[in-house]
């Protein structure tokens, strides 16, 4: 663990990204403390500029506090990003593990299914799924997971294909361990590093998809989100720039930070690239 941190630390931008993410997480965790009221509440004079009428980052056309929206929206973005990614990784591991380990016909079937999902443009597909299921936090998580698991499945399949013929796995066969045990206890732990890396990058993508959906009005109507704020403010971009600029910056910084962390994890966990610089 300490050597892992040593390697991670070498990548300065990854450390910066981690710091930003920690700030966003603290922001999300203390949202109810910083702004202990509903972010949809009409808090004051509409369209106040930043710093006016007690609004740090201004207010929107209905007098909602933009700063409160950003703090509460962080909760939504992180939660959806994390849960959707976990669901996607779970589906991806199940598909990839069985396809890679057993190969043959099962592999063909599972990979053709994966390819069907991969050929559909993911954002359009997510819109379609949310529209069918009615916008809610659950349907958004499902939609994001459904469009993002194929990448994981392909990655896990590749790792399983490579690892199943390694000698330590063959040794387990001679020791009479069953397939499920070999898959879970021997192969999966050895392909966790690339899964963690791809997972961290998927969180960023999931946040972007969620924002996009909310921007188009397909977000959960009861939950404040960055995409929703941008969508609500886009018509007033020229007269009240702060309404969509600040949530936009929040998305930009968060996604960038997560990508930097993913990059750093990749450098630290991937032994083949370890000596890159």
């Amino acid at each position, binding site marked *: 663990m300490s050597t892992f941190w040593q390697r991670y630390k070498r990548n300065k931008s990854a450390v910066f990204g981690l710091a930003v993410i920690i700030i966003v997480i603290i922001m999300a965790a203390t949202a109810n403390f910083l702004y202990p009221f509903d972010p949809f509440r009409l808090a004051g004079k509409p369209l106040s500029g930043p710093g006016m009428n007690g609004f740090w980052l201004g207010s929107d056309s209905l007098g909602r506090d933009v700063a409160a929206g950003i703090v509460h929206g962080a909760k939504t973005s992180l939660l959806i990003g994390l849960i959707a990614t976990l669901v996607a990784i779970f589906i991806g591991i199940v598909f990839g593990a069985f396809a890679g380990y057993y190969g043959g016909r099962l592999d063909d079937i599972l990979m053709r299914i994966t390819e069907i999902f991969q050929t559909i443009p993911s954002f359009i597909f997510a819109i379609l799924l949310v529209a069918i299921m009615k916008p809610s936090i659950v349907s958004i998580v499902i939609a994001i997971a459904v469009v993002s698991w194929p990448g994981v499945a392909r990655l896990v399949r590749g790792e399983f294909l490579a690892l199943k013929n*390694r*000698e*330590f796995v*063959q*040794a*387990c*066969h*001679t*020791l*009479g*361990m*069953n*397939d499920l*045990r070999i898959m879970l*206890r*021997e192969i999966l*732990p*050895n392909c966790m590093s690339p899964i963690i890396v791809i997972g961290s990058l998927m969180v960023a993508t999931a946040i972007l998809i969620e924002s996009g959906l909310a921007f188009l009005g397909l977000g959960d109507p009861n939950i404040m989100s960055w995409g929703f704020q941008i969508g609500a403010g886009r018509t007033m971009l020229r007269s009240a720039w702060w309404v969509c600029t600040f949530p936009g910056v929040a998305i930009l910084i968060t996604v960038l930070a997560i990508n930097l962390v993913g990059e750093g994890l990749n450098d630290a966990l991937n032994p083949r690239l370890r000596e890159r610089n």
Partner: protein
Amino acid sequence: METVIELRSVQRSFVTEPDLADRIASMFGAKSSAGTLRAVDGVDLAIAEGEVVGLVGESGCGKSTLGRIVAGILPQDTGDVLFKGRPMVDKTRCKDGSGLGVQMIFQNPASALDPRQKIIDAITEAPIAHGLIKRSEARDFAIRALERVGMREDALDRYPHQFSGGQRQRVCIARALAVNPSVVVCDEAVASLDVSIQAQIINLFLDLKEELNLSYLFISHDISIVEHVSDRIAVMYLGQIVELAPTRELLENPQHPYTRALLAEVPSLDARLSEEHALTGELPSPLNPPAGCRFHTRCPIATETCRSDMPRLELLNGGHQVRCPVVQTKK
């Protein structure tokens, strides 16, 4: 002596399946790269209790495949593998560990151990899974297993990468012996080790054999190692055993021209065999083995019949079997 493992005309092929691009290419008349590789082609071999059989041959001759079939990693296509007179069973099915009579030691101990598993878990996982020991006894069991291969208790909670190659191979041996096998297949088990360590590991193999009455199938390309450990030596060429004899007999009185050539290539101060012609030419592609005797393309004494008829493995005298009609008729 009782036979512990017996192979009866075991055969194993690998088919390279044509992929989509291949199939499209062959539709347009291109030559398909698909083919059948007979890695093991009709092998009969019996290993007695407490016996060490060496298996030598060039790389690509199918000796590793044969070892994996014996160890139950690969299934054979046809033929029988009998363990104590009974066909091998699906190892995962027998809960009491009775299907674990054959274990394997691999060439590279670094890749034969799970890099993320502590030594104690590597050794005790299978015995616990098969109910040979209880989880609470695992630590004592692992200590005893390590002592048997000359390692100390402090290795238990470390990871494979913290050990040297020789120590890792000792761990692999401890892991294989943890399920009380009768036969151990050693596939180039010392080839990746330093020469000084090789000797230690080989002596460990021999000590354990005496202590536990084990049988070994000792696979190697290095005759000088095999000769040191084996009671009998089998020489393999392109998936077939071409000569099988007690060690002394094989070394002093090699019959098959391939065996003679192999022995001639061993660097030696003894000039006895140096006049023999070393092997010329490459090993023919096993995808497309020559007709007749597999060896006739490189054989100095091949006759016309060798090119058309596949010779059989015939018994000469003193348990010496050879697959060559020329030397058989000479006798």
